[in-house]
C-alpha cells in the first residue's frame, strides 16, 4: 500500500508540489503559547505546527526516577533526542539550580505530551520543551519549605537556546516539517540541534537508509537556516 502512496508523492515532488502545496523548506504555521497550565506554576507551553500539537509541562520535583509506565521505543527516542539538544546545548546552567550547596537542588523534569501527531513530532516537541523552559519560574521557598503554588517570578537560568530542526530525505528530496503521509515514506532523517551562533550541538540520524556525507552536509545546512527562522517564533 505504501508503495502506491510513495509513487504518487514522488510524482508530486517532481512537479515541485507537496501535498499541501508548501515548498520543500517551508514549515506549516507555527503557534507558541506560554503558561497554558494553571496548576503548575513552574512552566508550561503549547506548540502547534500545523495540526501537530505538543504540550510541555515542567515539574521541578525533588524526586528523580519518575517514569510512568514503560514507554515505547519511539517515545524513548523522542525524549532522548529532545534532551540531547537541550543538555548538550547547555541551555541550563546547572550550577544555578542549586538551592543549598551539597544539600538541596532543583531537578527539572520536562514532560512532553503529544496531543496530536500530524507529522514532525520531533521538532514540535523540541520547540515546546524550549518554550516551557523559557516560561518556567522558580517556585517559592519559605523557611526551607517549597511552596509549589506560588512562584517567585524568577525565571529559570536559560543561558543558551538550542533549537532543533529535523530534515527528512525522501528519494532525492530533502524537506522539513512533513505531514503524516510524507513521514510514512521517509528514507532517512537527521535531527540537528543548533545554537544561536550556528554551532551544532546535537545530531541524531534516524530512518532505515543511509546518507552520504554530502547529504549530511546539505541537511545540516537546511537545519541551520531553518532554526534561525524558528528562533523568531519563540
Amino acid at each position, binding site marked *: 500500500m505504501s508503495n502506491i502512496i510513495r509513487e504518487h508523492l514522488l510524482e508530486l515532488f517532481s512537479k515541485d508540489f507537496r501535498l499541501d502545496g508548501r515548498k520543500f523548506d517551508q514549515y506549516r504555521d507555527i503557534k507558541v503559547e506560554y503558561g497554558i497550565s494553571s496548576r503548575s506554576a513552574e512552566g508550561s507551553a503549547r506548540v502547534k505546527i500545523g495540526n501537530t500539537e505538543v504540550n510541555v509541562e515542567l515539574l521541578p520535583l525533588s524526586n528523580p526516577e519518575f517514569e510512568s509506565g514503560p514507554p515505547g521505543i519511539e517515545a524513548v527516542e523522542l525524549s532522548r533526542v529532545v534532551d540531547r539538544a537541550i543538555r548538550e546545548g547547555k541551555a541550563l546552567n546547572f550550577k544555578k539550580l542549586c538551592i543549598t550547596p551539597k544539600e538541596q537542588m532543583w531537578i527539572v523534569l520536562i514532560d512532553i505530551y503529544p496531543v496530536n501527531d500530524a507529522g514532525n513530532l520531533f521538532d514540535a516537541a523540541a520547540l515546546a520543551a524550549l518554550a516551557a523552559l523559557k516560561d518556567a519560574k522558580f517556585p517559592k521557598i519559605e523557611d526551607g519549605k517549597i511552596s509549589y503554588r506560588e512562584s517567585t517570578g524568577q525565571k529559570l537560568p536559560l543561558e543558551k537556546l538550542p533549537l532543533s530542526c529535523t530534515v527528512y530525505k525522501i528519494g532525492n528530496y530533502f524537506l522539513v516539517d512533513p505531514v503524516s503521509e510524507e513521514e510514512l515514506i521517509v528514507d532517512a532523517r537527521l535531527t540537528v540541534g543548533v545554537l544561536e551562533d550556528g554551532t*551544532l550541538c546535537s*545530531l*541524531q540520524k534516524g530512518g532505515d537508509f*543511509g546518507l552520504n556525507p554530502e547529504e*549530511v552536509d546539505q541537511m*545540516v545546512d537546511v537545519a541551520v537556516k531553518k532554526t534561525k527562522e524558528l528562533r523568531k517564533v519563540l
Partner: protein
Amino acid sequence: MVYEKRLDGRKFDELRPVEANVGVVKRAAGSAMFKIGKTIAIAAVYGPRELYPQVFQNPTNGVLRCNYNMMAFSGSGDRVRPGPSRRSKEISLVMEKALLPVVDLSGYAGTVVDVFVELVQTDAGTRCAGICAAAMALADAGIPMKDLVSSVAVGRVGGKIVLDLSKEEEDYEGHATDIATAFSTRMGQVTLLQMDGEVSREELKKALELAKSGCEKIKEIQVKALKAKYVGDLNE
C-alpha cells in the same frame, strides 16, 4: 587548554588497538567479538526464526531486531544495573538502523533475525564496537548483505578533531564533543550519526571525513577476521 598531544599518546587519526574474532558463540547462527582499546563487544545472531507476536511480522520482509546490553561487571566502577534502560533501548534502535541499509531480508518474510550485543567491558565507543561485532556476526550467520558496516566514534577534544575517543577524552575538561558514526564504506553512506556536544559545520565535515577513513581501516580488520575463520585451515 589546547589539546596538543593525546592523553594516551596516539596520533589524532589513530585508532586504539583493535582485535576481531568470528564464531565465538558456537550455538548461535553467527557470532563475533570486536575489541577496541579496552572496550569489548560480543554479538550473536539467531534466526531467521518466527517472530512473535505475529502482529509485528512484516509480510514482505524479515525483521531485524537488535538488543544492546551492558553486562553487570562491564563498567569501570559501580555495578551496572541489569535490564534494559532507556539508553540501551535507544542504542538498540540506532544499531538496528545502522545495519538495516545493507541487510537484505526480502527472502525471510514473517521472520525475525535477532542480533544480541553484549558489552563485556566498556571503555568508550561501546555502540560502535557493538555495530562492528554485529556486522561480522551477520556475515558469519550467512545473512545476505550489500556491505559490511563499520563503526567508530570521532569527536572534538580540546578543539582538535580526533578519531576513536578514549574514556578520558570523552570526559576531557567537561566539554568534549562525541560523534558516533557508522559507514557502509562501499556505498559511501553514513548509517549511524549521533552527536553529543558542540561542533561547527566545518568541523563536522572534517569529523565525518576522519570517521570514514577510520571505518575503512576497521573494515579491513573485520574482513580479515571473517576470512581467518576459514583461511587458517588452508594453511595447515
